[in-house]
């Protein structure tokens, strides 16, 4: 009998919080802060992996905090979906954290003023974990607020004109979506007298159709803003790219996916099998198309990536709208894939900015000669995101398309066609950047960044920028010699790209896990049983039955 690690799930929230508290105590000692933060994240990662293994073997587990019985106390629930999300989110955050630490070391932040980056980052991770673990709507709201408040600070860090301008939009939009969510919680409580999701899943069905529809739509709108679904997505490409590279990367990977996760819970647990799916199909279609058309119009890599991010949220909504077991399995796999790939692309964009002085494709050229490694690091996730076989993006999309064809209504076929088309357009957008940034010669660039000319070709390139380039480089003007490709930043990016490839290599077991997760989503009985299990015993384990 192995120890029941799932009962330790609240630690996935508590450890990052403790780490953040310790960071506040040692706020003047950046090096120590770095160690504490990376240590806390590593412990959380190990714990989450153990939780995932436990849940994989034993099914959904509920943790009754303070031993209060289910509908009255606060419940945290880990099922396969939340366990997988916990692991993937912490893997990605750890990579981003090492990347940011590498950047800090390279830029000599140790001598800088007090750093609030690390504690805020840890609080963000705690909020994300809390949202994935929440067993009741209000706890989900609190999780959202924790991660959003941390994200406000991270987005506006440095307080430049650009970031404040983007931050105002971001904060106001986020607050309004949170208010909508809170209003829905209030109304749901008024209608049913509970906020526990397992309890709601039984009680909401008894409400009149109209009331159900209204509550359902309000929740979807609130989550839709957070997930950046088409008519509610305009805040995203304006705010994300202004933040620093690691911040954008972790936002792009995680924050929208928490919204998608909540939509999955709404659709499967709270309001299963309602007539709203056709609406979701159309929304998915528009999200895909509008997102990718926006991406094609961009000349900045970060903005282009933000638009592809929106476009690919459409795929997930498509899978949720189809709603069969196969479709949900594909969605679960696709989310895991997309978190990793999108984050690595943003990290690569950060490296390109560092190496080439800009993320504007008009200013970049010939990067393949300057740094072949960067070319590889860009190309693998780009092909992956575009859905080229045999990468994980291809596998996830094939899963979605198969599920769509299997259901086989006219709307399904339309969506299948559009997703293939959008996939091609994604490839077009990414390859255009590849050709212009990496392949063409510097002389062809519209406004080449001086740093591109001042560095010699591969093999003889200086590890740090010399005096000549330092004076002219747009990114590093006015600073001392900088390390252009710090090994920790490159290492973290490489590691994440390798994780992306591993998603392909281990697609078999991962799809098993996703299938397992989707069975529990389609048929939430075990989830509900776990929540209402007698207190003190935890979940309904296999042995107990």
């Amino acid at each position, binding site marked *: 009998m192995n120890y029941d690690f799932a009962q330790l799930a609240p630690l996935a929230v508590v450890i990052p919080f403790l780490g953040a508290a310790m960071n506040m105590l040692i706020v003047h000692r950046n090096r120590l802060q770095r160690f504490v933060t990376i240590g806390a994240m590593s412990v959380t990662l190990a714990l989450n992996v153990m939780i995932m293994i436990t849940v994989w073997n034993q099914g959904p587990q509920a943790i009754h905090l303070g031993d209060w019985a289910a509908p009255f106390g606060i419940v945290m629930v880990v099922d396969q979906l939340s366990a997988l999300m916990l692991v993937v989110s912490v893997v990605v955050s750890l990579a981003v954290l090492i990347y940011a630490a590498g950047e800090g070391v390279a830029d000599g932040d140790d001598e800088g003023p007090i750093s609030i980056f690390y504690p805020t980052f840890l609080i963000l991770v705690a909020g994300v974990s809390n949202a994935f673990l929440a067993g009741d709507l209000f706890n989900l709201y609190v999780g959202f607020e924790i991660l959003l408040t941390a994200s406000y600070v991270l987005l506006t860090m440095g307080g430049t004109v650009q*970031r404040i301008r983007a931050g105002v939009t971001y904060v106001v939009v986020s607050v309004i979506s949170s*208010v909508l969510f809170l209003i829905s919680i209030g109304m749901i409580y008024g209608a049913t007298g509970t906020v526990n999701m397992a309890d709601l899943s039984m009680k909401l069905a008894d409400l009149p159709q109209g009331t159900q529809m209204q509550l359902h739509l309000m929740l979807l709108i609130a989550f839709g803003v957070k997930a950046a679904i088409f008519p509610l997505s305009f805040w995203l490409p304006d705010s994300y790219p202004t933040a620093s590279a690691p911040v954008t990367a972790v936002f792009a990977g995680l924050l929208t996916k928490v919204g998608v996760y909540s939509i999955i819970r709404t659709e499967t647990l709270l309001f299963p099998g309602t007539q709203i799916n056709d609406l979701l199909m159309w929304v998915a279609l528009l999200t895909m198309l509008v997102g990718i058309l926006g991406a094609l119009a961009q000349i900045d890599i*970060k903005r282009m990536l933000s638009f592809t991010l929106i476009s690919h949220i459409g795929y997930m909504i498509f899978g949720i709208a189809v709603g069969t077991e196969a479709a949900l399995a594909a969605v679960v796999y696709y989310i895991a894939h997309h978190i990793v790939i999108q984050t690595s692309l943003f990290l690569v964009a950060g490296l390109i900015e560092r190496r080439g002085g800009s993320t504007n494709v008009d200013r970049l050229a010939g990067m393949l000669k300057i740094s072949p490694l960067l070319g590889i690091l860009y190309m693998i996730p780009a092909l992956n995101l575009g859905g080229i076989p045999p990468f994980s993006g291809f596998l996830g999309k094939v899963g979605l398309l198969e599920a769509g064809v299997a259901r086989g209504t006219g709307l399904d076929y339309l969506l299948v066609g559009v997703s293939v088309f959008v996939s091609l357009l994604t490839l077009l957008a990414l390859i255009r950047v590849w050709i212009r940034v990496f392949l063409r010669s510097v002389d062809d660039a519209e406004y080449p960044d001086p740093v591109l000319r001042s560095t010699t070709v591969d093999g003889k390139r200086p590890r740090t920028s010399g005096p000549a380039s330092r004076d002219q480089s747009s990114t590093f003007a006015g600073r001392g010699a900088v390390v252009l490709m710090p090994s920790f930043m490159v290492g973290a990016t490489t590691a994440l790209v390798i994780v992306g490839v591993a998603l392909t290599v281990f697609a078999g077991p991962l799809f098993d896990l996703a299938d397992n997760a989707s069975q529990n989503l389609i048929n939430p009985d075990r989830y509900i049983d776990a929540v209402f299990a007698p207190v003190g015993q935890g979940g309904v384990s296999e042995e107990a039955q």
Partner: protein
Amino acid sequence: MTVNLTLLVVMGVMYSVGVYLLLERSMTRVLLGIMLLTNATNLLILHAGGAPGFAPLYNKDLDGSEYSDPLPQALILTAIVISLATTAFILSMIYRSWTLARRDEIQDDLEDRRVAQQSAYDAEDDDAMPQDSSEFTDSDTPPVRPRHNEEEATESPGHHRAQHLAAPSSPDYVEHAEGHRHEGHGPEDTGEEGRS
């Protein structure tokens, strides 16, 4: 179930005034709107707990049905704390915006400004027309590239050139580039550039 009409009306007024203020351009008014909205929502949750007037604390003489529901009050407390933090943060952003740019207005986003900058004439779309450029270009200045112009190339997220609209467009590329500074994640950036 009885309903407290006064509270309901107050809630409705707060929602409507809050939404109205939210649509204003001034950031301070938007903040006031957000405060009204969050507090109206708190009232809504209070309503969800049932009619007022029941016992709030334990009293051994009372039947279970005569207590007021404590859960909405707990939810409201949490919501108040969260909205307090958000309000404080928005206030600090407004102050920051004021020190940087001396303005208390929500500014247009990048895409808006880009579209506004584009002339009605688009070289790629309208090229079939015979083009007479003599009216616009002097013989000694080079023709301006139609789309990917220098202004646009300089204004890239991650570089703070928010004020570039005010600055005269300079053909000298290096001068533009030198205005940039590296934006790390540390708080060392003060963005003095925008203080003009």
